[in-house]
């Protein structure tokens, strides 16, 4: 897995990084974190240029976020057709995004990165302000790119181990968010149902 991917990174360099970061922001399953780690590692040996890799990764990621946001926004009028309970949920999602959206976008770029693409669609669909989205997307992607390209650069001689540790850690972080959100929802459901004084 790493072998074939590292081979691609050596031969297609910046173009591959650009395509990978762009696509992964749209929820296309591309092993972008591995690609960025490899790019950092090859930069350490001077096969690629560290700054060029980081810049291209950032451009791809920011453009990908914009594309996801735009697609979400295009579907937004479909959301308006909803009525009844669904419309209420959407209204609540809009309110939530307006209140907490920025930090959510920021953290889902790097700490909870598996959630990132969906946050893009939701932010676009729930009518988050473009400037706010773009600012937090840029900040978050900068952290993401620095983290992964930087880790590849710093731990080039431990590439496979770093890839495994980071991959599992980001899975755990994203899983934790979903667990907490789902748990909180379930807790409220059961609390709402309890008879007063019980």
């Amino acid at each position, binding site marked *: 897995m790493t072998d074939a991917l590292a081979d691609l990174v050596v*031969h297609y360099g910046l173009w591959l990084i650009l395509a990978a970061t762009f696509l992964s922001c749209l929820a296309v399953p591309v092993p972008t974190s591995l690609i960025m780690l490899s790019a950092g*590692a090859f930069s350490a040996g001077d096969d690629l240029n560290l700054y060029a890799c980081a810049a291209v990764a950032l451009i791809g990621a920011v453009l990908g976020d914009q594309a996801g946001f735009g697609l979400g926004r295009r579907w937004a009028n479909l959301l308006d057709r909803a009525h009844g309970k669904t419309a209420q949920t959407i209204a609540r999602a809009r309110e939530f995004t307006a209140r907490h959206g920025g930090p959510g976008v920021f953290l889902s770029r790097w700490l909870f990165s598996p959630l990132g693409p969906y946050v893009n669609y939701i932010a676009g669909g729930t009518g988050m302000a473009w400037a706010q989205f773009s600012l937090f997307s840029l900040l978050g992607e900068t952290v993401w790119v620095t983290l992964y390209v930087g880790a590849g650069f710093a731990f080039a001689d431990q590439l496979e181990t770093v890839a495994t*540790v980071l991959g599992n850690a980001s*899975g755990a972080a994203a899983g934790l968010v979903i667990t907490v959100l789902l748990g909180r929802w379930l807790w409220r459901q059961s609390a709402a*149902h309890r008879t007063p004084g019980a």
Partner: protein
Amino acid sequence: MGRLAHLWQHHRRATLAFALVAALTLAFAIRSAMFALHWSDPARRDQLVEPWMTPRFVAHSWKLPPATMQAALGDFAMPDRRRTLNDIASDRGVPVADLIAAIEAEIALYRSTLAPRP
């Protein structure tokens, strides 16, 4: 009715999903902790020379001086950027395993010249 019983009766799918995601999260956390522990053992830190690596990458990872890498590559000059060992071996028409063996021999030779660590 207890909370759990209520959830199980009215939100069975969400409850199952919660249990599943919680278990997955735990599994990921344990896996990353185990790999990190494994990694902290210095004896296991050396990675192997592999066909996808480039001479520059090998030189960097094993902290080799340019002369050592040059010796391993033999008559061929250190290639321009972005040629893997696989590329170099097929240019020469030799099996990549031979090239890797030559590089590993040079690494061993170079390391034996270094002062032994206390």
